[in-house]
Each structure stands twice: as structure tokens, then as C-alpha cells.
């Protein structure tokens, strides 16, 4: 038999086998099951898209609020700047580029994204991106355009990553996967910030998620590339950087730094360097250019915190006025030191035991540590913590759903300022409903499933004490408190001498939740008693 004949024969028999499989009873059921899963997935995705679009029909940040407007105008302004000015002037202050009016302060990938959007805007209506004259431009058509750009970015980057993650890296029956996917896609915080308030967090979080996905599937170089893209879109992705670094390094070390590990390490390093170089290409010709970009991205002069953030500094501020006691530089060093101290345990643990499970936990711990202790944190940065928590929706439904609820709640003052009360109430209530029904969180809070056994050992509790019951009651009380405070801050005028009463209360309550989560997940990472399920996965 000739070679081609052989190949033909092989092909034919393959086709035959395939057809036989399809037409057999078993194959038919298999195919229908796959089709059913995919049609359920597509329903979830469509619903996710419609909900995003429904939220985006509402107001955005800074709508009709001259002279500074809000994040919507910032994004539009970047389109204007990137379209009309040469690359070299994007990050510099000059007559055409007033950096005090929403100057670019995100890494180059954001700028390129704005530039692409600006090209499309120019085709539709040149007025939208006209230099100087388009400042504060608002119109229904323009709103539609801007909203569409966010949705397109979400559909292209974030949603596919979520779908693939839930289908391939979450375990359980296909129904459980779809439920997780549903909740993941409908997490209210991200929807409200991106499609209500107006930002492009879906892009950076989506890239980070692609990174996690690739690492989970074992494609380390691709994963590090995706994560580098995320870093180059928003510098806040640094919150996730240490776990990525430690996981990859730990893996290389495990493979032996003298042999395969070294090869892997070099490959990853080369990928990261190449990605960075590509992203920064226009700014590399002149060192002053690159330095200016870095200076814009890390504005150390803006103070320890702004507004009311649910982190340590702002919460401490209600007791001690830190900002007046400590000097600016000292604040910076203090927050830096504390952040490092808080990240270190989980990172070292990950370095020594680089499993995917540990990686996910370390992502939570690192981003929460950054959120709680680092310098210049925005309330929206909680989304960076919410993403890794979403990854754990399948494994720890109760804790994750609780945290996600609290994280949405922590941004309440922002939503009220933007006129997003109705979408906030609707999506939060829907998420609570979904997590209770689909993930059946309340059935999943036995001691074993929440990994509470460690606590028993730590606290020398009486063995008969039902920790799970206590935790469940805490959950009820916390939900009631969040709902109650939401209603109060809408319905009541704060007393005259305490105008910030409700935002402070919101941020303090949220802070308590976050701190609790931080401690809990750190303990989880160090607990030596992985349940049977997890052992199986690690093998």
C-alpha cells in the first residue's frame, strides 16, 4: 500500500468510526448533551450581555456635571488626545494636552485602545473627537457609541475567558459549571462600574483571566503574555503580579533550575520582555519618554487615599487622623512596608507549593493585601479582588458569594453619586437570589465545605460548637445590615454635622468584611487539611 493510500485508508476509517459513533445511541446522547450544555452556555452569555446593556441605559459618571465631568469624559478625552496628537505628546503636558484635565494616567495599552475607539468615532461623527472643541461632549448618540465600545471589549475579551474558565477549569457536573458561569457573568460590581459608571475594567481583568486560564491549562508562556497585556492595560493589575510571579517561579524551581525549569524560566522571561517591549515600543526611543509615562502611571503625590475607601487607612482615619500626623513620605513607606508584609506569607506559601489551588488563593490574598494596605487605593480597585474570588465561586460558594455581595455594597456611595440606584438594587438582589438558588450557598456552609476545621484547632474550640451555624447567622446579619444601610442612605438625609455619615458607615462595614475575608483566606492557604476533593485535583 502506498503512503497516500495508507493515509486515505486511515482517514476513511476515522470518518467511519466517527459516523458510527455519532449514529450510535451513545454517540447521539453524547452529542445532544454537548449541544445542551452549549445552548445553556449561550443563554447565560446572552443574558449577561442583555443585563450589561440594560445597566448601560442608565446614567454614567459625571453626566451633565461641568466643568470636570467624570470617568466617561476622561475616556472620551483620551480618545480626543490620542487621535489628534502624536504618540510622543500623549503623556506630556503642553498647550494641546492639559494633563490637569483628565491627562492619560494609564499604561500604553489603554492609550492604544482609546486610539482605536477614536478612529471609529471619527468615522461616525468627527465632532466627538475634535481637539479642544469636543470637551464635555455629550449626546445620546455618543453615549450609545461609548457604551458599545465597552460592551464590545467585554464580549471580545472578558466573556470568552469567563466561559472557558468555567467550562474547563471548574469541576463538577455540566449543570454546576453552567451555574457558576451564570453567577460569574452576572457579578454586579463589575457590570455596574464598567457599564454604569463607565470604565474598561473588563479589558484588564479579562486579560488577567486569560492569564489564569492559560496557567490552569499548563500554557505558561501564553499565560504570562496575557498577564503582561493586563499589566500594560492597567497598572493596578500589579495587585495580581506577585502570585503570577511566584507560581511560575515555583513551578520552574520544582522542575529543577538546572534542567527543564531553567528552559521554562527563560521562555517565560523572554515572552514577558517581548510583550512589554512591544507595548512600549513608541516610548523606548527616548528614556525621558518612558520615564514620563512611568511618572504618570504612578502618581505618588496624590495622598494615601481619596474619598471613602473600605481599606485600612480610611477606616483607621475615623479613629486617628493619620494624614495629619504622618508626613507624606512616611505614609508612602509605611503603606509599602505593610503591603509587602501582608502579601509575603501567601506568596512564600505559593512559591514552595505551586499548585493551581494555591495560586487562586494567593491571587485573592495578594490583591486583598494590596487593597487593604497600599497607597492611593480607589474603591473600584475592589474589582481586582472580586475577580479571583469569582474564580473560587465553584469551590467555596458560600464565602465567595458573601464577599462579592459585600464588594458591590462597598461601592454604594459611588453608585448613588452616578444615579445608579435602581441598577444597583436590581443586580445585587438578583445576584443574591442567583447565588442562593443556583449555587445553593446556604446548603454549602457545612464546616467541612467551608474548611472551618482549622479554626477549631486554632481556637481550641469545644468540638460540639457548631461553627457553621454561627457563620450562617453572621451571613444573615451582614446581608441585613448591607440592605438596611443601602435603604437608609437613600431614604434619610444625614445629620448636618455629619454629612459623610453614610459613606463612612458603608466603608467601615465593607472594611470589616474585607479584613475578615483576608484573614480567612490566609488561614485557608496555610491549612494543611485539604478536603478529599482537593487532594484528588492536586494529583
Amino acid at each position, binding site marked *: 500500500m502506498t503512503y497516500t493510500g495508507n493515509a486515505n485508508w486511515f482517514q476513511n476509517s476515522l470518518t467511519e468510526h466517527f459516523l458510527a459513533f455519532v449514529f450510535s445511541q451513545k454517540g447521539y446522547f453524547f452529542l*445532544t448533551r454537548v*449541544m*445542551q450544555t452549549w*445552548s*445553556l452556555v*449561550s*443563554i447565560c452569555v*446572552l*443574558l449577561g*450581555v*442583555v*443585563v450589561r*446593556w*440594560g*445597566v448601560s*441605559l*442608565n446614567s454614567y459618571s459625571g453626566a451633565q456635571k461641568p466643568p470636570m465631568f467624570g470617568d466617561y469624559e476622561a475616556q472620551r478625552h483620551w480618545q480626543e488626545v490620542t487621535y489628534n496628537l502624536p504618540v510622543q505628546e500623549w503623556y506630556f503636558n503642553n498647550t494641546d494636552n492639559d494633563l490637569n484635565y483628565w491627562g492619560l494616567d494609564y499604561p500604553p495599552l489603554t492609550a492604544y485602545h482609546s486610539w482605536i475607539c477614536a478612529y471609529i468615532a471619527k468615522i461616525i461623527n468627527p465632532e466627538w473627537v475634535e481637539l479642544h472643541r469636543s470637551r464635555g461632549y455629550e449626546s*445620546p448618540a455618543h453615549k*450609545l457609541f461609548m457604551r458599545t465600545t465597552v*460592551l464590545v471589549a467585554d464580549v471580545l475579551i472578558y466573556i470568552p475567558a469567563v466561559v472557558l474558565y468555567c467550562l474547563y477549569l471548574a469541576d463538577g457536573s455540566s449543570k454546576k459549571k453552567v451555574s457558576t458561569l451564570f453567577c460569574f457573568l452576572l457579578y454586579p460590581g463589575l457590570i455596574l462600574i464598567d457599564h454604569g459608571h463607565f470604565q474598561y475594567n473588563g479589558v484588564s481583568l479579562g486579560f488577567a483571566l486569560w492569564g489564569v486560564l492559560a496557567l490552569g491549562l499548563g500554557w505558561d508562556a501564553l499565560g504570562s503574555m496575557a498577564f503582561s497585556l493586563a499589566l500594560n492595560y492597567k497598572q493596578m493589575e500589579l495587585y495580581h503580579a506577585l502570585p503570577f510571579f511566584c507560581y511560575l517561579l515555583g513551578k520552574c524551581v520544582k522542575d529543577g533550575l538546572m534542567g527543564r525549569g531553567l528552559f521554562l524560566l527563560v521562555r517565560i522571561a523572554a515572552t514577558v520582555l517581548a510583550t512589554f517591549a512591544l507595548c512600549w515600543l513608541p516610548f523606548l526611543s527616548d528614556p525621558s519618554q518612558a520615564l514620563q509615562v512611568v511618572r504618570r502611571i504612578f502618581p505618588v503625590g496624590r495622598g494615601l487615599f481619596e474619598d471613602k475607601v473600605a481599606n485600612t487607612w480610611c477606616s483607621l482615619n475615623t479613629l486617628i487622623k493619620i494624614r495629619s500626623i504622618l508626613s507624606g513620605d512616611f505614609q508612602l513607606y509605611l503603606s509599602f512596608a505593610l503591603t509587602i508584609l501582608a502579601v509575603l506569607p501567601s506568596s512564600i506559601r505559593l512559591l514552595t507549593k505551586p499548585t493551581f489551588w494555591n495560586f487562586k488563593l494567593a491571587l485573592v490574598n495578594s490583591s486583598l493585601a494590596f487593597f487593604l494596605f497600599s497607597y492611593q487605593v480607589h474603591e473600584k480597585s475592589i474589582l481586582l479582588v472580586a475577580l479571583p474570588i469569582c474564580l473560587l465561586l465553584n469551590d467555596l460558594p458560600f464565602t465567595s458569594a458573601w464577599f462579592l455581595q459585600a464588594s458591590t455594597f462597598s461601592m454604594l456611595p459611588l453608585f448613588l453619586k452616578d444615579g445608579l440606584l*435602581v*441598577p444597583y438594587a*436590581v*443586580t445585587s*438582589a*438578583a445576584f443574591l*437570589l*442567583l447565588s*442562593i*438558588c443556583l449555587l445553593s450557598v446556604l446548603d454549602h456552609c457545612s464546616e467541612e465545605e467551608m474548611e472551618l476545621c482549622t479554626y477549631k484547632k486554632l481556637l481550641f474550640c469545644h468540638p460540639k460548637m457548631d461553627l457553621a451555624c454561627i457563620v450562617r447567622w453572621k451571613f444573615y446579619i451582614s446581608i441585613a445590615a448591607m440592605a438596611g444601610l443601602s435603604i437608609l442612605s437613600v431614604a434619610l438625609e444625614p445629620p448636618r454635622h455629619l454629612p459623610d455619615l453614610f459613606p463612612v458607615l458603608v466603608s467601615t462595614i465593607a472594611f470589616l468584611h474585607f479584613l475578615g475575608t483576608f484573614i480567612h483566606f490566609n488561614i485557608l492557604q496555610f491549612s494543611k487539611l485539604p478536603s478529599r476533593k482537593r487532594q484528588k485535583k492536586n494529583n
Partner: protein
Amino acid sequence: MAVQSDGWSWFLPLAAGVSLFKCLFINAYRSTDFEVHRNWLAITHSLPVSSWYHENTSEWTLDYPPLFAWFEFGLSKVAQHFDKNMLLVENLNYASPETVMFQRLSVIFTDLVFIFAVRECSRCVQVQKVSRDILDQPSFVLSVLLLWNFGLFVVDHIHFQYNGFLFGFLLLSVAKHLQSEHLQGALLFSILLNLKHIYLYVAPAYGVYLLRDYCFTRDVKDGSIGWRSFSLLRLLVLGGIVVSVFTLSVGPFLVMGQLPQVLSRLFPFKRGLCHAYWAPNIWALYNILDKVLVVLGVRLKLLQEAELPRASMTGGLVQEFQHSVLPSISPATTLFCTLLSILPAVVSIWRRPRGARGFLRCLLLCALGSFMFGWHVHEKAVLLVILPLSILAVESREDAGIFLLLSTTGHYSLFPLLHTPAELLIKVCLMLMFTTFSFTALRRLHRGKGSLLRPLEVFYLLGLVAVAIACEVVFPLSPWKHRLPFLPLLVTSVYCSVGVCYSFLRLYLSLWRSDCKAKQP
């Protein structure tokens, strides 16, 4: 909890989820129907009953039956706590954020009737085998098909109307018949008739069914009617219920001598054969045939262009028009055609009643028959068929096929209702969601016996995708946009009317088949 023990734990979360979802679209596009209902709120709130049907400050005069006016009156009592200004008759086109919020929430809250009705209907579904998987439960599938119904959602919560509330009454009355609570069913239906008179379309089915199945208590052995078993008492009770509801509703106006005025508002025959956008029925095909003949005639020089009556039938403004080649249609003709089309169905349940399910099929045929042949039919009226058909679809294979065909076509024909760019995505996604779900769930329910649709039907439905892309994407970008602005509407209604007509025939065929089956014991 009692609810959880009998496997209904999914219902409340499902209903709550749907209601929350509806709240997302409070700020979406709304049609003039929003102003219509605001005006009615104002009329019923600030004017005495005697001038409700005389008031004409706004062009949107009250043209629903009296019970609906009372319903608006009740709503207005709540509305005054939101914003008093919306209750002033002269405040035309008033839409403050509070007004929008109140009106939208009123639709969402009155949908509770619908939710309750869906639950009652789902209880009546026959279950062949008990299954653990939720997608295998017909009651679950039916609830989703009804609660997430694309058409109802679009018409009520974006376009703005109170159909959910009204369909709640219809489905509840159907459920009562399925549960053999005929008197309650009759009561609910007579209330419904006095809320919105469009339900007159299905009244023949109710009349004949109640007379035949309820007033005659027993059949002769061979299935024909047993004249001796006629129960006068039952007829009197039934009549009493219907008459008392009508007295409550129309009585006051009868006393005030306003009945002719009310009737002239309810039945405005001055409108044209077709609505501005042709509903996908037989007249759409008739109109297009006329157009084609005109074009052909002019081309072949059989007709003089100057002699033809000038009327743009799709112009939107012209409501009355004449056909050029084919004879023009008068209201009497449509009435005759409608009666003729529903006659076989009605006769069939008179001669051979097949219980409440036979009645439901007859109701569907009446609704679809009047949709097909009626005078000035709105495209929204197709919901009158799609919603009740869902009940049959989860029970029988044949009906599932008809349902898939009709619901997809009928729902697509609602697309022109939402014509603003921001709502394009919503309608497309929701439609895809509903269609995907109905195909997946119904195929799963009726699995193992081949496909639900014939190849030609699948091909036709795929054609809808092409039509959608052509009308929604390609056409707005093409140079014809300004020359022939109504071309997409025309294409949509003609293409959809083919599917609707076909479904009508298939529905009749299924009735005829079950007739044959009943004859051969």
C-alpha cells in the same frame, strides 16, 4: 416549607428573577402607549365617570372597556404619591422620572396576576414520568416559556402595555377550565372581556365550549350530543355570572345613556384594513400581491400608471387605502372571512368535545383565525396565540413543532416595534435567548422520536436570520434607506405572514387528525 417538598422550589426564584430583570429596563425606549396610559390615569383620576368616554384633550382617548378604566382609576390612587403632575389631563406628554418609574413599576407589579396564572397553568400540565432533572419537567419548561416570553416582555416592559396583567386573566381562566372549575373560568373570562375587548376574538370558543361541555352534562355513548342531559340550572348560573359582570362594567354607562359613545370608542371602524406596519397575516400577502400585480401590469402596459389610485400602503400615515388591481376589502368581508375560518374549529368541539384541551385548541384556532383575517389587526395580537399554545407545546410533540414555528415567526414580526438603535441589541439577544431555550427544552422534552420540525420549516426559520440581517444591518447602510424607507417593514411582514399562515394550516391539520383519531376507537 410546603413549596419545596413538592418540587416547586424553583418557581418563586424564577418569578422573582424575571421581575428583577424587568426592572432593568425602566429607562429604555417607550412608545406612545406610555403617554396613552398616562393620559388615561389622568382622565380617570381627575374627571367624573360621566366624562371618561367623552374627554378628548389628548388624541389618545380612552378606548378600552370600562373595567380597564376602573383599573387605571385604582392605579391613579397610587400614582398620586409618586408625582401629582402626571394626573393632570392637560399635561400632555408628561414624563418625569417619577412618572416613568411609577408606570414601569405598575406594569411589573400587575404582572403578579400573570405569574400566578402561570403557576396555575403549570400545575395542570400532565406529567408522564417524574424526573429529577429540572429541564425534564414540563411544568418548569412551561413556566419559563411563559414567564420569559419574548413577545410579552418586549410589548409590556419596553414598548409599554399592560398585557401581562390581561393575559394573566386569560391563562388563569384557561387553567380553571383545565381544572374543571368552569364557573370560575367563565367569571374570569367575562372580567377579561370587560378589561380589553380584543379577547372577543376567542369568545366563540368559550361560548361553544361552556354550552356544550358544561351545560350538557352527559354524552350519548357514541359521543354525540345527549339533548336530554341539558341542565337549565347550569345555563342560568353561567348566564348570571356573565350578565352580572357586564352589568357592573357597562351598566353605569347604560344608565347615563352613553352606551353608543362607549361603543364608538371601542370599535373605531374608521381605521384601515391594515395597521401602519402590516401584521403578518393574509392581508399582508393580499396587499403584496396587489402591489406585484400593479408593477407587472405597468411593465406589460396593461395598466396606465396615471389611473391608479395613489396610496402608499406602507406609508404609515395613510390608514385607509384602496387596492389597485384586486378588489378592496371591506370590514364586512373580513368579518365573514374570520367567521368562516373559525367555523370548523367551533363545529368540531360542538360535535366532538375533547375536554379542556380540545377547547384550548379551539381557542387557539379562533385567536389565530381572527389574527389572520381580522380588520386592522395589530402585530401584537399574535401573542394571543403564542402564549396559550405554550401549554399544548410541552404536552404534545406535534404542537411543539407548531409552537416553535409560530413563536419564532410571530416574535420576529414584533421586531419593528422597537426601532431605536439602543434597543436593537436587547431585542436580538432576548429573541435569541428565548428561541434557544424553547428549541433546547422542547427537543429535550420530546426527545427520541426524530426532529420536531420538517427540513423545509427549518430552512424557512433560517431564512428569518437572513431577513433580520438584511433589514437591521444591511438596509440601514444601503442607499435605499432614503428612497424606500418602509421596505424592511414590508419584507418582514410578508416573510412572517408566510410562516403564520403555514402554522395556521398546520394547527388545523392537527385538529383534523385528532378528529380522525377520535372517530376510530
